[in-house]
């Protein structure tokens, strides 16, 4: 699975996710990637999110939209909302994986509860990261 989130100079945000699914999958199994609100979500009022991991759990958790709701209705920051969803809720549901997010102010967060996640990020204030492990 691959995904991208971005905030442009006009303050608009967007998210994209694409996947080949799970090795050896059967029965036209679908994970969270193409399901809006589970694997992919974007709303200028809150955040853009792209997820990767055990799709069934991210589906059940409505993970991406949950982050947006925590920000919109409980005034969480992007970092706080993603941390709660990835490192508490998904762990309780035994959902391995992570997500990347950007908020309407251009703040970036990359959170995962697995040993590793391939990720990269950059902003116009000099932040630049490319990494695989924790």
């Amino acid at each position, binding site marked *: 699975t691959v995904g991208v989130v971005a905030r442009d100079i006009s303050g608009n945000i967007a998210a994209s996710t694409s996947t080949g699914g799970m090795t050896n999958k059967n029965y036209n199994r679908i994970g969270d990637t193409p399901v809006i609100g589970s694997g*992919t979500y974007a709303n200028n009022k809150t955040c853009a999110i792209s997820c990767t991991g055990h799709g069934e759990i991210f589906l059940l958790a409505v993970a991406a939209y949950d982050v947006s709701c925590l920000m919109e209705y409980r005034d969480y920051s992007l970092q706080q909302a993603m941390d709660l969803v990835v490192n508490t809720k998904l762990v309780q549901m035994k959902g391995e994986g992570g997500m990347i997010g950007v908020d309407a102010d251009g703040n970036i967060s990359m959170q995962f509860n697995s040993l590793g996640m391939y990720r990269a990020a950059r902003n116009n204030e000099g932040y630049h990261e490319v990494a695989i492990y924790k």
Partner: protein
Amino acid sequence: MPGYALALHGGAGTILREEMNEELEKAYLHALEEALNVGYAILERGGSAIDAVTQCCVVLEDNVLFNAGKGSVFTNSGTHEMDACIMDGNSLRAGAVTCVHGIRNPILLAAEIMQHSEHVFLSGKGAVDFALSRGIATVPEDYFFTQFRYDQWMSARDQQGTFLDHNSQAKGNAIPNKKFG
């Protein structure tokens, strides 16, 4: 000047260090940097977030190292079945596809659905029919073949399980075929 920013991922999992040699790690880091540069350059010249997330995702789909597009994994029946989704935070519009075969860049099909159809989510053969009607690039099934993914598939079949993108294929790491696919 208001900030612009981009982040990307290439999948998660219990990536074991001992299974990652230096050359492979360098290849992954280079691939991530390359995709990052494409998306960030669009933002830098004032391009839109929706364009940046589309084009950056295409670069990742075209790289065999990642489980999307060209590097997609094998299904139980030995095919490549892909999903993709894109969402615009400004208009709250979105496009999504699932269970498509032979589409070179599923994210471009998802973007086409968002921009040029009255639908949000298309699946299977119908989604491919829409792709053909809109001139989205299609490729033969063997375009998606990679030895690494083929070996992963063989290992999963031996273990009667499935794997996440980057899970170790060592014995016992397959996710057993239970409720979660």
